[in-house]
């Protein structure tokens, strides 16, 4: 039996967005009529950055609106894409005359609604747009031909935070639309993520989690929408479970000895900070054993799946330029340095 804190489950997303804006009035505003969250003070003379997707992954994306990251975030209902009109209105709001970059996690509904929004913005408003598709989830890498138009491809998960942070920094520096899109695609192309859960998330107002796990089971390769994972593995100590994420990531990315990565150690909703920092330590151990530096850590619950109990690890091989953009100032409700 699970319980959740709701007034009416149907009102939860909008009430939370209102609360976000009330809590951070100098950073963001909630446009209830058009269904998006924008910077409290719109930026001038830069490319606009828009992201969005289903709710239930907070603080993604609305928590990353502000200087150095997004201009506008567009939340859908829980685990459902925002509509094409929401995204179109958001694109118009984000345009400061230098075009708009869409940062989209790879899910069918999100991709199609963002694409329609770009077509409307182009045809009806003459706004230049580009898209970066984030598809970092290694668990959904089925070795398809990259050019197969029918393959759904990998899901987009926590690497979207790195894309938003790095493109956000470059946009503040005045990068043009084309080079931002190229930068974002290169970050997305080199990042991979992998997650496990020891308990599934529960929809607001529902009493049962999306799937059941026995006490000795762990769902490995789990997604962020209550999808089942790729396999079930035995429960064990943190270091063993984290190794089940780090090992395949290293296998896929093959970072050279002496090279560096950014590691995002992400809680999936109800993983608490003690657990997460112990997981970060395990990631550090796994990388150090392979002669790879963790140049920067981001540890926290950033891309969640309601109250799922689990961890995702994202590795992004970096160079000095990416580190410089990563270190650039950011001021948003959920990320500030």
């Amino acid at each position, binding site marked *: 039996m699970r319980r959740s804190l709701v007034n009416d489950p149907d009102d939860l997303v909008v009430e939370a967005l209102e609360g976000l804006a009330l809590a951070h009035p100098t950073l963001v505003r909630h446009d209830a009529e058009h269904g998006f969250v924008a910077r409290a003070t719109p930026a001038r003379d830069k490319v606009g950055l828009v992201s969005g997707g289903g709710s239930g992954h907070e603080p993604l994306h609305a928590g990353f609106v502000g200087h150095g990251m997004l201009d506008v975030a567009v939340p*859908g209902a829980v685990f459902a894409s925002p*509509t*094409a009109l929401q995204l*179109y209105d958001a694109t118009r709001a984000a345009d400061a005359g230098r075009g708009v970059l869409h940062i989209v996690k790879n899910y069918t*509904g999100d991709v199609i609604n963002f694409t*329609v929004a770009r077509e409307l913005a182009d045809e009806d408003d003459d706004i230049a747009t580009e898209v970066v598709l984030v598809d970092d989830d290694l668990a959904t890498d089925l070795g398809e031909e990259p050019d197969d*138009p029918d393959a759904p491809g990998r899901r987009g998960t926590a690497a979207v935070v790195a894309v938003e942070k790095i493109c956000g920094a470059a946009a503040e520096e005045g990068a043009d639309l084309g080079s931002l899109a190229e930068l974002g695609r290169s970050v997305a192309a080199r990042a991979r993520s992998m997650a496990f859960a020891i308990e599934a998330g529960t929809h607001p107002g529902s009493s049962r989690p999306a799937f059941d796990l026995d006490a000795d089971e762990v769902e490995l390769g789990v997604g962020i929408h209550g999808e089942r994972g790729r396999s079930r593995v035995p429960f064990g100590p943190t270091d063993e479970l984290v190794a089940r994420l780090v090992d395949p990531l290293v296998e896929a990315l093959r970072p050279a000895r002496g090279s560096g990565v950014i590691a995002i150690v992400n809680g999936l909703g109800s993983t608490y900070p003690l657990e997460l920092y112990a997981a970060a330590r395990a990631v550090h151990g796994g990388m150090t054993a392979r002669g790879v530096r963790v140049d920067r850590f981001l540890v926290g619950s950033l891309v969640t799946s309601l109250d799922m109990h689990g961890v995702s690890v994202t590795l992004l091989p970096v160079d000095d330029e990416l580190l410089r953009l990563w270190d650039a100032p950011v001021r948003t409700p959920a990320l500030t340095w």
Partner: protein
Amino acid sequence: MNARDTALDAGFGERWTRAMTTAFATEADRLGELDRLAGDGDFGRNLTSAFGRVQQEVDAAGPTTYAAWLTCVSRGFLGTGGTSGPLFGMFFRELARCSTGDEPTVAELGRGLSAGLATVQRYGKAQVGHKTMVDALAPAVDALGATDGTLRGAAEAADEGARSTADIIAKRGRASYVGEASRGVLDPGAVAMAMVLALAADSAS
């Protein structure tokens, strides 16, 4: 002058929009049930939501021309989530754009329908035989594009196409996830598209 190049009777756009609003309010449950049998079950609710928004758009915009009425239909769907929202929304956007007159000619509707099919296929990547709305739309485009094509003929072709989806195992769209379980079930998107065309024919006469 060919009858296909004569504008339809005044009020066609309004009659068609209102007929769809009424018909889908009645049929949403039946279409939703088809979707539950071979899909994710949200199609009925999405249709209800879309036509609720169409009514809001109509109330706000006060359309007077065919293009303005169909733009309300398009925006109603584009303001609805899922994948059927954007697909139907962009389909109706092409239909709204097919004529600049107060009412369209049959030939213009033929070109709009053809552009709508191209848009749906561009976004949905579906071909005939994939058990989607394309199975109803493609034969209707062929029928209406013929030199003597009529709206009634297009509606009948769409109806036949929608019926054919019962025999198909889904390869695209919502029903593709359930595979063999989709056999014997009509595709709700194709059925909805056939309804759209039947209501166009009803509204023209």
